[in-house]
């Protein structure tokens, strides 16, 4: 099998590693509020999310036709650039995980690719108009749309149930949360596992291992599904804590409202052809749920940090992707060097994370105190 070069194997392994980081980065999207309100215990929540992500991966294997969806000149994307782009995305995912910040894995991948293509094929291969249209505008719109929808939903939930006993309301909404969170996890599996399948399939096509227009082979579907679901099961506890406890103080009706809003926005947007980032939608809906409840505390400092990380995602991943592309372009030795440095960095981040570990036992403890702002009554 001549077509399975060292570089191709490196791309496939890196794509699966990216898929794994994508999984643990995004567990919080579906499960953070359910864990925070006690609708599901932390370990059960990540298991449910992992299984649903795996199911989602098999439900939809209609992979993308192009690597970038048009944000770079796809005909000029080489295997080295894909490899370098993935490295940039993985490292950015690990940095944001260490800091407990939810950031979009798709944007990290796009950022990495942009940097790698810019270095490898020049600035003319990067389509800045498409970046504004497909990344910047949706990134601004996602949290705003989700925030407004969740704010209204939370307000309605509290107004309608105000004369009902708190105990019954809490119990009922917690049960509802299991359903709404599961839908987010399933939708995530169909969207995000596909991304990795697409990258691997297009890499295989570019080397001639697969014919043009071929769908992903079974082992690609299986490995991509397993990687994202194992990542999800590993649980990015640091990000779960930020989204469940850090942004605002979530109660069951808010959790239900936030998850229902997120599901509706994600499904409506992907069905109507205006794809929005799952991470940004989920973060926006949690913020909206915080604003919709009377006297809820919204920690604007945390929200600000998250917003800054979103601003930095594209340039930071692009910078790493660009450097990685330059080194990896020197041949197999360069590729190996990039892989070793990335592995060392990942190990370093892991060691750093052990200093202040966040795990299923302490995930529901509120993070380090920060001045909280009391929001004016909305209900």
């Amino acid at each position, binding site marked *: 099998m001549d077509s399975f070069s060292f570089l191709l194997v490196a791309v496939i392994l890196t794509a699966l590693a990216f898929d794994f980081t994508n999984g643990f980065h995004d567990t919080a999207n579906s499960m953070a509020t359910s864990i925070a309100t006690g609708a599901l215990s932390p370990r059960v929540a990540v298991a449910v999310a992992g299984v649903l992500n795996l199911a989602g991966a098999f439900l939809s294997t*209609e992979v993308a036709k192009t690597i970038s969806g048009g944000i770079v000149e796809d005909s000029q994307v080489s295997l080295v650039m894909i490899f370098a782009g993935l490295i940039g995305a993985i490292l950015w995912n690990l940095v944001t995980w260490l800091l407990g910040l939810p950031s979009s894995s798709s944007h990290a991948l796009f950022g990495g690719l942009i940097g790698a293509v810019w270095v490898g094929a020049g600035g003319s291969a990067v389509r800045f108009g*498409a970046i504004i249209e497909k990344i910047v505008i949706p990134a601004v719109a996602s949290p705003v749309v989700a925030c407004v929808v*969740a704010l209204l*939903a939370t307000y309605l939930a509290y107004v309608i149930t105000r004369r009902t006993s708190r105990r*019954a309301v809490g*119990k009922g909404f917690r049960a509802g949360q299991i359903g709404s969170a599961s839908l987010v996890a399933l*939708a995530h599996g169909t969207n995000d596992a596909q991304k990795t399948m697409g990258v691997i399939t297009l890499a295989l096509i570019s080397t001639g291992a697969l014919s043009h227009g071929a769908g992903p082979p079974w082992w690609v579907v299986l490995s991509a599904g397993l990687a994202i679901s194992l990542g999800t099961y590993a649980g990015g506890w640091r990000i779960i804590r930020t989204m469940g406890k850090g942004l605002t103080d979530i109660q069951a009706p808010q959790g239900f409202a936030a998850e229902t809003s997120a599901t509706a926005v994600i499904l*409506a947007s992907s069905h109507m052809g*205006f794809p929005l980032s799952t991470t940004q939608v989920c973060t926006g809906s949690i913020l909206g749920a915080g604003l919709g409840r009377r006297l809820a505390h919204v920690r604007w400092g945390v929200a600000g940090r998250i917003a800054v990380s979103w601003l930095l995602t594209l340039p930071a991943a692009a910078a790493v992707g660009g450097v990685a592309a330059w080194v990896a372009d020197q041949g197999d030795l360069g590729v190996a060097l990039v892989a070793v440095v990335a592995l060392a960095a990942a190990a370093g981040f892991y060691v750093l994370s052990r200093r202040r570990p966040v795990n299923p036992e302490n995930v529901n403890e509120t993070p380090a105190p920060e001045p909280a702002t009391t929001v004016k009554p909305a209900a």
Partner: protein
Amino acid sequence: MDINWGTLAGVFAISLGITAVVVVLFSLGLTAWSRTGHGSPTSHPPGLRHQKTATATALLCFASCLAVAGYGIGLIVTG
């Protein structure tokens, strides 16, 4: 660059509508369910007829939410 603001507005309107419907139905369902005597200990147990209406309302609300969720799963599965 071609930003489709109309579609974005559509996404906003539809998700707002669907979310509001689901949350209102679920909340009404919970309110009705608690009137059937479930969850809230009351000193005056509701009359049988009242209880039946409340149960039917609650079940109707929850079934409608499930139907919307089913539609959502349908959208996910068919892409």
